[in-house]
């Protein structure tokens, strides 16, 4: 009992002593990072965290952000949303009301970004989701932005590319019916392809469910349908299985993918089977130039692997925040006013030069930007092949 009392008294004394030091400095600008550090997709959370921290290093090396001729220190509030919708909402609420962040970057996956966007919009706090492709994330939410292109854009990009490159007529699609992103993209692709080649040109539209590992029945059907290529907008673990199984069944035609292929793991798991295949994505790591290359080299040196698209998009989101803050001109210290100013500046961003391409925001908060078609080279690298703009 007495020990406890002494402890409490000591704590009180320390609390009182350590008080005044925090007051003299300028209040830092706080940026919230709402990332899935644990849960289903920890690699995504890691990429987000690393990219954001790299950006912070740059800023702090300059001694802070210069806004309207005054330097402001920057602080990141990184929180884990466990890849769960309700945790993402909790984290967003906490950051906005407790930590009083100026802007939130993330969440990444749509199932967290849609409900978290609602929170951000209600509290009139700008939010940029680097990776969420669901239209609902930004729809009718003036305070919510994203840094990636949407599925309705990516579908036609791939269809056009294949038409021009190979002049194929018959397509097959294999996708996960239970997952939001592949399903949406598969449908957009189908529509685009049929617009190009007439109805019935998608000869096989096969689906499976998340965590399936045997695709032989679907692939046999596809093979018998006489399709000239397969489009499969799946994640890296399934891509490897699909490609390998297709080759085992003797399917020799190309297999084409989407931005979900753009993980370092794809080639690791898939090996030689994936060499020479194409997919559309946000940026290409091999053969990158200028700022993009600088980012990749730095990231690789620091963390030991080539950053995937999440990291690159997060980096762009952070740079967008920086640009908007500088454009905003001044920080008043009144959080509502600054958030409003930042949102207006973000909405006005034009021709922003990101490492994933030039961006201009539309009314909805979605960027107009180019997609990149990547070829997996014989060395297993993601090689820039072609840039496709809207």
């Amino acid at each position: 009992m007495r020990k406890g009392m002494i402890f409490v008294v000591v704590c009180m004394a320390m609390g009182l002593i350590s008080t005044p030091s925090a007051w003299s400095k300028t209040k830092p600008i706080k940026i919230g990072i709402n990332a899935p550090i644990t849960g289903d997709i920890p690699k995504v959370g890691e990429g987000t965290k690393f990219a954001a921290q790299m950006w912070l290093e740059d800023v702090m090396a300059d001694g802070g952000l210069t806004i309207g001729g005054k330097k402001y220190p920057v602080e990141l509030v990184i929180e884990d949303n466990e890849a769960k919708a309700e945790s993402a909402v909790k984290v967003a609420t906490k950051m906005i009301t407790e930590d009083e962040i100026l802007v939130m970057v993330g969440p990444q996956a749509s199932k967290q970004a849609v409900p978290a966007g609602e929170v951000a919009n209600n509290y009139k706090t700008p939010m940029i989701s680097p990776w969420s492709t669901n239209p609902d994330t930004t729809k009718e939410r003036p305070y919510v932005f994203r840094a990636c292109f949407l599925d309705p854009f990516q579908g036609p990009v791939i269809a056009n590319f294949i038409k021009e490159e190979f002049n194929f007529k018959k397509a097959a699609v294999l996708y996960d019916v239970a997952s939001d992103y592949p399903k949406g993209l598969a449908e957009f692709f189908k529509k685009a392809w049929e617009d190009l080649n007439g109805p019935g040109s998608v000869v096989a539209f096969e689906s499976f469910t998340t965590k399936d590992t045997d695709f032989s029945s679907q692939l046999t059907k596809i093979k018998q349908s006489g399709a000239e290529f397969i489009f499969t907008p799946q994640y890296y673990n399934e891509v490897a299985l699909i490609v390998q199984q297709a080759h085992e069944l003797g399917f020799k035609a190309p297999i084409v993918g989407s931005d979900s292929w753009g993980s370092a793991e794809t080639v690791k798991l898939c090996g030689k089977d994936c060499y020479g295949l194409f997919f559309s994505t946000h940026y290409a790591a091999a053969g990158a130039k200028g700022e993009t290359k600088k980012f990749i080299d730095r990231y690789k040196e620091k963390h030991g692997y080539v950053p995937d698209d999440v990291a690159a998009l997060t980096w762009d989101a952070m740079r967008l925040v920086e640009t908007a803050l500088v454009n905003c001109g001044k920080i008043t210290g009144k959080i509502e006013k600054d958030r409003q100013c930042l949102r207006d500046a973000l909405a006005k961003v034009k021709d922003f030069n990101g490492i994933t391409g030039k961006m201009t925001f539309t009314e909805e908060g979605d960027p107009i930007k180019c997609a990149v078609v990547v070829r997996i080279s014989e060395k297993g690298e993601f090689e820039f092949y072609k840039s496709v703009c809207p």
Partner: protein
Amino acid sequence: MEKKKFKMKRTNASQAPVPVRRKGLMRRWFSGIPLLGWFSGILVAVLLEHFLGDALTEVLGLPKIPVLFGFVTMLKKPALMPGSLVFIVLVYLIPVAVTARLGASAANAVAARLIRRSVGLSAGIHLLLLYACLHIWADVSAYRVLTLKLTLIAVMLTLSLNVINGYMGEFSCSHPGFMAVGAYVCSVFTVGLFVNDRIFGQALLPPFLAPYFFPVALILGGSAAAAAALFVAIPSFRTRGDYLAIISLAFMFIVKSVIENLEIIGGPRGLGSQPDLAGLPAVFVWTVLCVWIINNFVRSTLGKALNAVRDDELAAEAMTVNTRRTKMTAFLFAAFWAGVAGGLFAHVLRYVNPGTFGIQRLAEVLAMVYFGGLNSVYGSILGAVGLNLLGEALRPLELFKWILIPLLLILVMIFRPKGLIAFKEFDPKRVLMPRFRSE
């Protein structure tokens, strides 16, 4: 049971020499305080925080009032630890202890008078006081409101699963499925009626009617979940144990798949834009209703029949317990409350997607039930509140959180295999009674 009691006595005796004196002092100091006394103590503390919290944080150099008893602040910024501790001691510990102690005799007198008047009145006043405490506490920050709402929903969910897994002793894994059915039916009802939506078209009724229809929506969601529970209840007549677990697990996956393939309610994209109806009062009222009704249910004859079925189904049947009816009732009843919890959950988040109701949710609910204690209302409340707050408080630890919490569960399973407070009856009358000093 006999054996367990004996064991507990022995451990108490063997630990006796050192801690007993301190415990004795604390116990003497805090004995004889009725629930009413504690509640008024907490009320004083939250009022203090509400009015003086900001001034105190300024003096202590804290950026804001420590939101979850200082846990988050301390883990994120260890430098602020002394300040947070002082805050907790000054605002919570001392006021609660002092008010509860000094007001004990007055509180006892009031409690005695209330309980003599009627138990219902006494319970009502206690609940009002509890709500006042929660409301004032949560009023400080929107984050507290959200955490509190989700915690209360978790209490409902845990308690309803306890009816099947604890009281009836079947291992059912279908709870996320029931919750999903409730969440979706309730959302479709409110979104269809009150929101201009691209799926269901124009709102059919003006939005000001929405709060009045919300209970209807929740009951509808609960009933739909109960109807869906037939798919698990009927097989449970013939199967037990592992087999029922598999069937109920299959049910959960079926529900998830069905929703994923129903394009009209959003498919895997999920369903959003529910009207903002689940405020703290609504969630609190439904949770109280849930606890009250489930507690009455498990203390009724039918509830005792559940225990009979758990202990020995054949013997129960021989002793004229209608096992089929019992199982059917238990499943439908538990599913109803899971459905209501799902409906509230959907309206708190204002977005649902089928991925939310998967195996991870199942693991969470099961953990809360087994951590808190089987066959006990206290246990369910403790389990849900404990794991929820712990999960929230340890969030800054990121990966280590997932080591600490499972470790805690393992320790609980080793030292208290049936959960923290298992097999304890919740008798409202006894809880509300005045207490007199022991010793």
